[in-house]
């Protein structure tokens, strides 16, 4: 049984020249083996910062974990030393970034780049590593893997490069996989191909997976469970089907309704105004004392501006941070 990843009260503080504030605040969640948890949110919601914190890739000391634990197989990553982390990153925790060129060295051929990881973490010799990489390339559906082994990253399309990055992340058969906007830079047909590959391989490897995205449709296609983030906090968390069928937090509800989706044949398309969420995302350093969504919330009452709601379980497996959540069947 693979270990799970458990985040407990994680808070990340960010220091800029002018001010210090929490970019991620009191985050608690668990990802089980074989499960895909989506962290979804808009820019500034703290979703990428969370991923960086788990990998301990924050630009310390500008951004630092100030409290909380990141428990992985009995180790608290929040307090682990650099030597321990080096043995875990890229080995037991695989990482996929949005832009493949940030993970790939442009001046090294793609095959040897992946082989290097296997030599480093698994001690494979060059010939064995090459065979293993060609297998991996085949698994991520790179056509003609023997020949593409010697390509430089720039000789590949964006979709192929992202496949190399997936191969790199999966090379050491990781226990945890973190994918930060893995298809955001790709065209829609390439995205469909990559998502399919990602889903299949994630299931095959059985890794506990965190998928970070702003795209609710990608969540619907890929995730088992969803945590919606707003202003550095989780505001709602539940199973994917439940979230789409009956969101309880007004922010989730607003996001789902404001998104024009491609309708199916026979479905009536209205050209009416889209339901908007008023206002803009608040600055993290000047959050209101109460619920951070209160100034934009159509359901907000006096209490919402004054007191910050805690993330509580409204129904089994369904958590929301809201004083006046929507009805379960609404």
């Amino acid at each position, binding site marked *: 049984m693979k270990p799970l990843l458990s985040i407990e009260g994680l808070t990340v503080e960010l220091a800029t020249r002018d001010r210090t504030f929490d970019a991620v605040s009191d985050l608690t969640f668990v990802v089980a083996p074989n499960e895909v948890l989506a962290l979804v949110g*808009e*820019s500034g919601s703290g979703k990428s910062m969370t991923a960086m914190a788990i990998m301990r890739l924050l630009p310390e000391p500008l951004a630092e974990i100030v409290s909380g634990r990141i428990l992985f197989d009995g180790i608290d990553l929040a307090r682990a030393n650099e030597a321990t982390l080096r043995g875990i990153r890229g080995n037991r925790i695989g990482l996929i970034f949005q832009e493949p060129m940030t993970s790939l060295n442009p001046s090294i051929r793609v095959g040897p780049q992946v082989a290097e990881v296997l030599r480093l973490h698994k001690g494979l010799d060059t010939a064995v590593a090459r065979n293993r990489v060609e297998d991996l390339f085949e698994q991520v559906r790179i056509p003609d893997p023997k020949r593409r082994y010697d390509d430089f990253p720039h000789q590949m*399309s964006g*979709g*192929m490069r992202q496949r190399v990055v997936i191969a790199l992340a999966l090379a050491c058969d990781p226990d945890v996989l973190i994918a930060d906007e893995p298809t955001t830079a790709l*065209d*829609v*047909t*390439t*995205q*469909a*191909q990559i*998502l*399919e590959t990602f889903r299949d391989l994630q299931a095959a490897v059985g890794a506990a997976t965190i998928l970070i995205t*702003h*795209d*609710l*449709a*990608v*969540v*619907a*296609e890929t*995730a088992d469970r969803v945590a919606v983030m707003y202003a550095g906090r989780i505001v709602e968390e539940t199973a*994917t*089907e439940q979230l*789409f*069928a009956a969101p309880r937090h007004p922010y989730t509800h*607003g*996001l*789902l309704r*404001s*998104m*024009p*989706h*491609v*309708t*199916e*044949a*026979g479905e009536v*398309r209205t*050209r009416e*105004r*889209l*339901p*908007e*969420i*008023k206002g*803009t*995302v608040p600055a993290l350093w000047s959050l209101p004392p109460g619920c951070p969504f209160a100034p*934009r919330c159509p359901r907000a009452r006096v209490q919402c501006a004054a007191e910050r709601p805690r993330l509580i379980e409204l129904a089994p497996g369904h958590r929301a941070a809201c004083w006046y959540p929507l009805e379960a069947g609404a």
Partner: protein
Amino acid sequence: MTKLLDVRNISKRFTVPRGISGGSAIVHAVDDVSFSIARGETLGLVGESGCGKSTVGKMIVRLLEPSEGQILLEGDDISHASHRAMRPLRRKVQMIFQDPNGSLNPRQRAADLVEEPLIVHGLGSASERGAKVADLFARVGLRSDQMLNVPSKFSGGQRQRLAIARALALNPLLIVADEPVSALDVSIQAQVINLMSDIQKEFGLAYLFVAHDLGIVQHISDRVAVMYLGRIVEIGDTAAVYHRPSHPYTRTLMDAVPRADPTHRHSRIRVPRGEVPSPLNPPTGCAFHPRCPIATDICHQQRPLLRRVASGAEAACHNSD
């Protein structure tokens, strides 16, 4: 409806350097594209990166000159008009870009940015221009106390509102909007889309709406054109193109869109084959034939032309009905 914009067989070729040997190659970024837009109508232009959709938009506002073909605006040919001749015509067509940071001078105050086109075109006295700017600010949902701020003081959504106010200043007939909301947060996209719909009704505007987000394009467009490797492969009413796609590429594109419905996940997905070929070396015949599930011999040899199909749309395919 009368044709406001009539685009006839436009092409755009770029010369690109090839390798270190000093040679060059020609890319047909846009190849023999025709369509029209009526007053007050929205035509959505979709396709994947490199298909030429942004190049079409830039030719219509004459940021680029077509290599071939004609662009008629209210009957006037603007495709090769000189700078001087373009000037009165520019008032009629404006453009909104994806990244308002790139189109708004960061050192100019917001009010000056909106007033500038009026000054350039010599319209109104100073006080008339001031009143017009105040009116535009209110119209796009910006506050009057923001008028003296520079663009960096605005959020992304507000900057796009500012770009819209600037585009509206000259009372254009047509706005070319190139990915106007794709850089914005999801909760802000709906605000800007609604604003664009509102001002369209109020000013009788037509839009050429260039975007890759098929949900947004469906919401806003009366008609939709689908491009693949520099050519329109299908064009027609939004419902026909989305619900009865005739070209196999349109079908591929529609199938590939992730749906925000977790209950229909695995049953629906039909993953497209292969990748978009290099525009430097496009396939013979129909450019889509190497990826097409219904390609036959003729598709390798002969380039299909747009023709009317059963859905009422036009599709460039030998084998669709």
